[in-house]
């Protein structure tokens, strides 16, 4: 007990020292001089509270840990049993999709906008999930592929007048090609080395876009990227030559929120397509091979599976989803610049995959929603927002390292009559 007391006292003292030096004093400039000013009593009061909390937490730490240990086992939640039945599951999926389709007609414009952004992250998360969660290849430069997709549409439109729908498959194909070209030399590397190379790749793409001013406009980016059309009907007040605006075609008054709704529905359809394609891939030979390779590549080789080819397919397919998401992002924003494709985007998408539970699609979707909604909800905390965000991430990893909803087995079942 005495050593515990000593330890708690030391922790409290350390808290006070650090807290006082960081929060308790302030440097003010008076003319040419800089003086050290002591903060007001409120700061010191909070500091005192913090010191007391740390003291008692350290003092009773063994008991708190024991308590946590006991609650931990019960805190693993899994899917409710009604989702296990096939017919019921179909019904629920249909209801959810229906609700998601109805959502834009009931919600506010800002909420629809936020939902669209969330769906972009859902697509990115699902795509990266193929690479990291299923194939087990740590990719820190995923944003590079996102940028390639966005710039493919922007440049094709800028120079050749491609519409969104013409550019979308090309964006996926070009990004897949980039994934292939990057993957070919580097997939012999393992774990950490691969992570570093992909990190470099993401940065190279961004810096290239920033400096190749003649082609990409450099830091000024590319603006006036047209929004997607609905069978050539535009959602602006006045259409470009040859096209008809949506509201004139249907003879209804112009409302800018149609455009927002249309973008949302488009994002929803793209996300649903992504979910379906990856759902199928996971149950196809290639998906099984990805998982097997993640577990033991030597065993894979001994069974005639070519590890490099399988890794390359995961990398290429994962990249192409980022390409689709990127093209949609460019169309939604109407303006892109290299600033949108910094490392922090890769980190957020990776966090979505890890938080969601590696390899699990539903987990990744939930995590993508949480990761985009949390910063919005926490907006009133201003500059402490990211701090709060970090805290939640740390707690998540301590209490639930396997992610929100870890991948569930079996993927394939042997049914016997």
């Amino acid at each position, binding site marked *: 007990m005495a050593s515990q007391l000593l330890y708690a006292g030391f922790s409290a003292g350390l808290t006070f020292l650090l807290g006082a030096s960081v929060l308790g004093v302030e440097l003010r400039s008076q003319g040419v001089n800089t003086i050290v000013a002591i903060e007001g009593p409120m700061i010191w009061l909070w500091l005192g509270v913090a010191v007391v909390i740390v003291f008692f937490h350290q003092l009773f730490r063994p008991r708190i840990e024991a308590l946590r240990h006991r609650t931990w086992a019960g805190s693993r939640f899994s899917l409710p049993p009604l989702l296990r039945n096939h017919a019921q599951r179909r019904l629920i999926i249909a209801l959810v999709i229906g609700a998601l389709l109805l959502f834009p007609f009931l919600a506010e414009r800002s909420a629809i906008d936020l939902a669209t952004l969330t769906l972009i992250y859902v697509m990115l998360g699902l795509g990266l999930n193929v690479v990291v969660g299923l194939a087990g290849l740590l990719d820190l430069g995923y944003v590079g592929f996102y940028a390639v997709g966005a710039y493919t549409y922007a440049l094709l439109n800028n120079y050749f007048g491609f519409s969104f729908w013409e550019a979308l498959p090309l964006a996926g194909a070009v990004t897949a090609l980039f994934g292939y070209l990057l993957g070919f030399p580097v997939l012999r590397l393992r774990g950490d080395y691969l992570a570093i190379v992909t990190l470099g790749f993401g940065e190279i793409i961004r810096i290239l876009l920033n400096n190749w001013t003649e082609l990409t406009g450099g830091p000024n980016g590319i603006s006036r990227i047209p929004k997607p059309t609905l069978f050539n009907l535009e959602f602006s007040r006045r259409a470009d030559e040859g096209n008809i605006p949506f509201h004139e075609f249907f003879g209804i008054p112009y409302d800018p929120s149609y455009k927002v709704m249309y973008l949302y529905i488009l994002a929803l359809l793209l996300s649903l397509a992504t979910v379906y394609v990856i759902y199928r891939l996971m149950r196809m030979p*290639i998906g099984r091979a990805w998982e097997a390779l993640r577990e033991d590549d030597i065993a894979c080789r001994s069974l005639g599976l070519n590890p490099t080819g399988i890794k390359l397919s995961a990398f290429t397919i994962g990249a192409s989803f980022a390409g689709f998401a990127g093209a949609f992002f460019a169309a939604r924003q109407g303006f892109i610049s290299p600033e949108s494709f910094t490392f922090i985007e890769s980190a957020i998408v990776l966090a979505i995959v890890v938080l969601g539970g590696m390899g699990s699609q539903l987990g990744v979707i939930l995590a993508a929603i949480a990761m985009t909604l949390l910063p919005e909800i926490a907006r009133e905390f201003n500059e402490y927002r990211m701090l709060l965000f970090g805290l939640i991430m740390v707690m998540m990893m301590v209490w639930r390292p396997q992610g929100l909803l870890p991948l569930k087995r079996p993927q394939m079942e*042997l049914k016997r009559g």
Partner: protein
Amino acid sequence: MAESELLSVRDLSMRFGGLLAVDQVSMEVRLGEVVSLIGPNGAGKTTVFNCISGFYRPTSGEVLFKGRPMQRLPGFKIARAGMVRTFQNVRLFKEMTVIENLLVAQHMQAERSLLKGLLLTKGYRRREQEIMERAAHWLERVGLIDFANREAGNLAYGQQRRLEIARCMVTQPRLLMLDEPAAGLNPNETRDLNRTIVRLKQEEGITVLLIEHDMSLVMDISDRIYVVNQGKPLADGTPDEIRRNPEVIKAYLGEE
């Protein structure tokens, strides 16, 4: 070269830096035989295996499988040619289920076209059905059918060993290479293994190359035996010949 020769290894050597782990080893495996490779610990048996199966690139020598040179090919291509191996320490996909382990092993037989799989074409579904049935058939053969949907890592050790053999067999190999399959098994399980290998030989016509320390198993099921000691070939012959060979006795028991 005889018609029935499936695998022939000629003057195989493998050098790791200053260590000559395998020195001029030659062996022949004929169709339908069970051939064992024995020797004291550290004799280089597993290194021979790794060279034959393409996990190491031998320093010199030839490996001919069905008359085709194999020694320059990567491991996965050798496996595709019909030579499939197990490992000393079990290497299952532990987080995948038992049946999934067998489905992965049939990757080369499966319909791998992405488009057909995404569209769930009739041909794709038939092929998936076929590999599922073959997997179920082999689970039945090794007595693991009741564990089909369990995670492979949760099986008992002996069951994991059996699953590893089943996983090799679903690839429909010509030559099955087993690296100490009886290691860690109790006498009952070893007897089961003995029966399994004999049945594979009789019913499937499979050829087996075996590394094993359990002498009663080796003497019981082998048609011929090769002995290596310190990387060098020491003797070869039928179990009876090997049992009486003074060189072999010396290597195993030490000099008097």
